[in-house]
């Protein structure tokens, strides 16, 4: 299930796990950007919360995997939607 990050072209999405609330707004706008429909399984990002350890993990799909669309760096949009939409500014580019 590991994401293939060998195609890394300098655009890596990172998360500040302490800031993230887990509202999934980024995940949903991403799926909307790709398909005009709403489904987290279409999104290029995935937020996973682990309640046992109180941690949040981000998975960034740079290549298509299962139903997840590959991240196209929001082509056609004015901004990078997931970063723009985040209420706590937890997402950033590295």
């Amino acid at each position: 299930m590991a994401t293939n990050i060998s195609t890394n072209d300098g655009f890596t999405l990172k998360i500040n796990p302490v800031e993230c609330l887990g509202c999934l707004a980024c995940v949903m706008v991403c799926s909307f950007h790709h398909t005009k429909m709403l489904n987290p399984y279409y999104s290029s990002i995935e937020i996973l919360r682990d309640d046992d350890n109180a941690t949040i993990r981000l998975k960034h799909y740079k290549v298509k995997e299962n139903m997840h669309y590959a991240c196209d760096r929001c082509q056609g949009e004015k901004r990078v939607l997931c970063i723009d939409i985040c209420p706590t500014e937890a997402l950033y580019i590295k």
Partner: protein
Amino acid sequence: MTKNSYAGKIAFINLSNNKIKFELTEKYTRKFIGGRGINLWLLYNYSKIEYHPLHRNSPIIFGTGPLTGTLAPGSGRLDIAAKNYYTKGIGYSNACGYFAPELKRAGFDHVMIYGKAEKPVYIKIINGLIEIHPADDIWGLTTWETEKYIKHENKDPYLQVLSIGPAGERLVKGACIIINRDCAAGHCGLGAVMGSKNLKAIAVKGENPIELSNPDKFYRYFEEIWAKITSKSKVTNVIKKLGSLMYFSSTAEAPVRNNQDAYLNQFKVVLPQKFIKEKGFMGIGYYMCPISCRHYFKTKYGILKGPKTNGLHDFVSRLEIYDIDDVIKLNALCNKVGLDIDFTSNVIAWSIEAYEKGLLTVKDFDGLKPEWGNSDFVERMI
């Protein structure tokens, strides 16, 4: 058929004979928008006035609305309706979490459950497929263990689980339904209604997209509203930081010692701003909700999810427990066993006052000594 954001189907599950039938949501949307409206209409039509809330044929209905699972802020709520265990009238409650959008993506706007299973069962709904599984192994487990067990057994961490704890199984009046460990549909004894059907849990997963009839227009409205909610004004900053806990800090008005007093003298000891800064380290929001009502706290009992405002009212003011670690622990304990914290604290506060007034004796408490602010006593009572 035009595209819209309804999943399109309603499932009726009869646990007595394991038969399932389906109806189109369209049949009802002419009269009601969805959510609680259709829930109560179904309750009205399928329940009878002579049914006790725990009657085997009395239905319990889980419903989502047309906005659920879309980009609308706060659209992750699940509405649950059944006959009210307290009053025998109508009962409904709602809870946040990730369950409702998942249910809708699984293909159902509403799921109605009636009948009674002979043995404990749990229902699994995956992409429109409904299965009823035995739950003998998880009967008696807490809500947290149930969620873990079901995810582990099905080898699917993406399952969203709704469950009842031992309180619901034993038909306690204040039993609630728990989603994602701490989202509770607490009112009306809905947990007991589920328990009376021998239904331990519902697990859902849905991979179908939710469509919109006019995506571009919807997105424009969403951007506008979302920008307002997440703007950096003074008010929104406080709301984002404290969530619903801000209501506790704004006044010292609180039901103190079973409503014997209305002003909490020592409210500064438990100021949310203070203890969130000291012990909280991460806000928690649920589906499309930018407000962190709860936080994770580092307590002396480990990392736990904290309470909302009513948690503070219930344990801090009503029972006068000023140690915030204890409050967080008691809140988590109630979530584990599936008890409504309002109900629990009210009953315990009432019993302490009754003891003070001489109506109850130590014998009634199995030798425990009831007193205000004693968290061990409260824990034993729970």
